[in-house]
């Protein structure tokens, strides 16, 4: 029984309700409620979030040239990408063209974010959904060494290295403060790696923690500081002075060489550590192919990384642009962010109000008027919700749709579009990974596929970093050191009324900002962020969003230990790092977990 959604899922909420709920509903927290049948298979999924939606209110009346600094604060993890999206929106509105060097440097900043974010996400936020830390304590260091050396030439692989590391881990665990490893369901049958693979992964967890510090130095060099690097409408804020020696803030050869060195190490780390780890972990989970959700049906990518400056058309973007619907990989639809009939946000199930909630609004015409009320069958109170009623309003996230379709965004969406376009740089690594694991193409549409696509993209981004670094140096050597175009810096040069859109591919998916400028001030500003796409609630037609779809039909080993739910939600890299606990159907707290 149950209800059939237009996008192909059968929802049955008659079984036991399991609530995965945050400690508080502050700041970007998410909560998921599922119904499981008598075999503990998920038959209904409801995702709600308190995604922060107030940016349009804060920015109204401000100087468009400052918008990036505000948007950089929206989210703790994707700061730079919001800033880049913002300056692109303003440049689009004011028709500002940026120098070639600025494009290369922005691409380097954005690709650095991809590499950094993907590595940190995998090792520090997601790996522990696959890796049992406590099991690593019983590993044999010699066998761990043999395993590591069989999959990679990475030099940190001796028996002594793993023995020392195991000792450090043991002291840490014995001290009683599990720190980043607390809140795991250690020992759960949902974990499948042998102790040696667990120990190897924990070693790489620490190495990645150490290595990520170096990657972000690129942001400090080109952005002036980190965290919260500087951006500039019209270009980038760092001057280039190749003959300079240590000039304050200026980019010279010494710094460019340092960046090149970090890029080379990023390539080595992704080639020799990240990808082999994903493949090794994947080999133990290759029959756990749940979590595909919308990925096999409808995916969306705006594209990013323009090869040449000022051309944001699909053919100039190295990350692919396009939409795929109903699983038809043979047809890739063009995407137009300006077309009011393509991207629309609905609020029928969101805590906002529109004059007509059967219709969606394009972001240029978007409105954000809160309307917090629970559906008739919700349990609990407004300040202490026990369970939501998904037939009514149930989320602070709006429901964006592309031509009416719920879409998944993110690395997997990008790679599916690239794969469907038969671009060798996307298709070949995917085919190779699938072949090595002995899996069919269909296996790509899964939680594991999402995790693997992120790893492949990290490697792709590391090599593309090198490409733009080389290009930057070549342009400078050819005598062009311009990094900013300030022709339209003065507001007196602007038309009285303009609008623009800026887009990027943030590490976790398609991101766009829409701006309207009137009399030199911001009149309207709307951001549709990746987690709005993925974490969206139902729309007026009843289509479920990507998080919800991804949980459907997943069997749980034990509903009290929702490893499977966390594993799949984390595979999206939701920008909602949040604490949650698991509640039973009657609101009794069952266990505490952290949605990382």
């Amino acid at each position, binding site marked *: 029984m149950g209800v059939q959604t237009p996008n192909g899922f059968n929802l049955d909420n008659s079984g036991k309700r399991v609530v995965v709920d945050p*400690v508080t509903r*502050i700041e970007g927290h998410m909560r998921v409620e599922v119904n499981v049948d008598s075999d503990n298979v998920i038959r209904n999924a409801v995702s709600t979030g308190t995604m922060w939606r107030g940016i349009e*209110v804060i920015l109204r009346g401000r100087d468009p040239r400052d918008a990036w600094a505000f948007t950089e604060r929206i989210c703790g993890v994707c700061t730079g990408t919001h800033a880049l999206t913002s300056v692109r929106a303003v440049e689009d509105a004011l028709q500002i063209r940026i120098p070639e060097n600025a494009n290369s440097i922005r691409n380097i900043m954005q690709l650095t974010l991809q590499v950094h974010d993907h590595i940190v996400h995998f090792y520090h936020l997601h790996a522990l959904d696959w890796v049992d830390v406590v099991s690593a304590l019983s590993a044999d260091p010699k066998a761990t060494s043999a395993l590591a050396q069989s999959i990679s030439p990475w030099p940190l692989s001796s028996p002594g290295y793993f023995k020392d590391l195991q000792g450090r881990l043991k002291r840490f665990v014995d001290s009683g403060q599990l720190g980043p490893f607390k809140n795991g369901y250690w020992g759960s049958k949902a974990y499948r790696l042998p102790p040696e693979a667990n120990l190897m992964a924990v070693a790489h967890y620490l190495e990645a923690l150490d290595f990520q*510090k170096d990657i*972000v130095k690129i942001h400090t060099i080109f952005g002036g500081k980190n965290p919260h690097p500087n951006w500039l409408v019209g270009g980038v804020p760092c001057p280039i002075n190749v003959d300079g020696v240590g000039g304050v803030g200026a980019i010279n050869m010494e710094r460019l060489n340092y960046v090149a060195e970090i890029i080379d190490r990023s390539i080595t780390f992704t080639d020799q550590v990240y990808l082999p780890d994903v493949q090794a972990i994947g080999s133990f989970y290759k029959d756990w192919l749940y979590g595909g959700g919308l990925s096999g049906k409808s995916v969306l990518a705006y594209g990013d990384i323009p090869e040449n400056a000022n051309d944001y058309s699909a053919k100039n973007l190295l990350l692919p642009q396009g939409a795929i619907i109903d699983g038809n990989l043979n047809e890739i639809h063009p995407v137009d962010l300006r077309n009011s009939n393509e991207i629309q946000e609905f609020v029928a199930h969101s805590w906002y109000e529109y004059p007509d909630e059967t219709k969606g609004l394009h972001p240029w015409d978007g409105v954000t008027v809160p309307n917090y009320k629970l559906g008739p069958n919700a349990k609990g109170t407004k300040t202490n919700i026990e369970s939501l009623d998904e037939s009514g309003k149930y989320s602070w996230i709006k429901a964006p749709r592309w031509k009416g379709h719920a879409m998944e965004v993110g690395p997997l969406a990008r790679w599916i579009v690239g794969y469907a376009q038969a671009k060798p740089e996307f298709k070949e690594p995917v085919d190779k990974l699938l072949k090595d694991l002995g899996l069919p193409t269909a296996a790509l549409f899964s939680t594991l596929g999402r995790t693997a696509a992120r790893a492949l993209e990290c490697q792709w981004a590391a090599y593309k970093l090198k490409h733009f670094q080389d290009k930057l140096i070549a342009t400078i050597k050819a005598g062009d050191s311009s990094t900013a175009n300030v022709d339209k810096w003065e507001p007196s040069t602007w038309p009285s009324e303009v609008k623009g859109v800026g887009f990027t591919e943030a590490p976790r998916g398609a991101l766009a900002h829409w701006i309207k400028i009137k009399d030199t001030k911001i009149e309207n500003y709307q951001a549709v962020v990746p987690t709005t796409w993925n974490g969206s609630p139902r729309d007026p037609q009843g289509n479920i969003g990507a998080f919800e779809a991804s949980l459907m039909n997943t069997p749980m080993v034990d509903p009290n230990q929702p490893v499977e739910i966390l594993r799949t939600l984390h595979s999206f890299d939701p920008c909602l790092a949040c604490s949650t606990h698991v509640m039973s159907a009657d609101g009794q707290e069952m266990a505490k977990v952290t949605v990382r």
Partner: protein
Amino acid sequence: MGAPLAKKILVLGIGNILWADEGFGVRALETFNAFYEAPGNVSLLDGGTQGLYLVQFVEEADRLLVFDAIDYGLEPGTLKIVQGDEVPKFTGAKKMSLHQTGFQEVLSAADLLGAYPEKLALIGCQPLDLEDWGGPLTAPVRERLLQAAELAAVILDQWGAPCRRRAPGEAAAALLGNDIDFQSYETRIPTIRTGG
């Protein structure tokens, strides 16, 4: 033999400035910078909500002083100083926001990397309102910023890093630019409320 190298001290403000009293940590740091000049071995960092990404800064510091909003069920605006081993326990006592969870993890991660600060102190403030989207600091919290800065100066003095109180009207290099500094942000913000 030269003088022993001065201890590296990091003063870190954490929180989200766009979210009412969540902004306490960053605004307190900004206030400290406006009122005090610290010696060269002290660096100030607006950590925002960067969570785990702050580990390298913590790792490099011998001593760490943190400004943050904390929920300990006190009267709104109450300042509380927590030191040493109590800091991670304290931030974990009642997690109320994203960055707080993140910061505990930062400390653990620094510990795992063998680089835990030798001295650690937290100047926390009990918030009144964390749910005002795009809202300013509330009055009880705003009124404590200067006192929080003064407490930081006392702690730094105890740590052998005496700070000089700036003369009235003396300018300091701004920590935050592009209209998100305290003055520009707080003076004109329309707000919407989540209801509830």
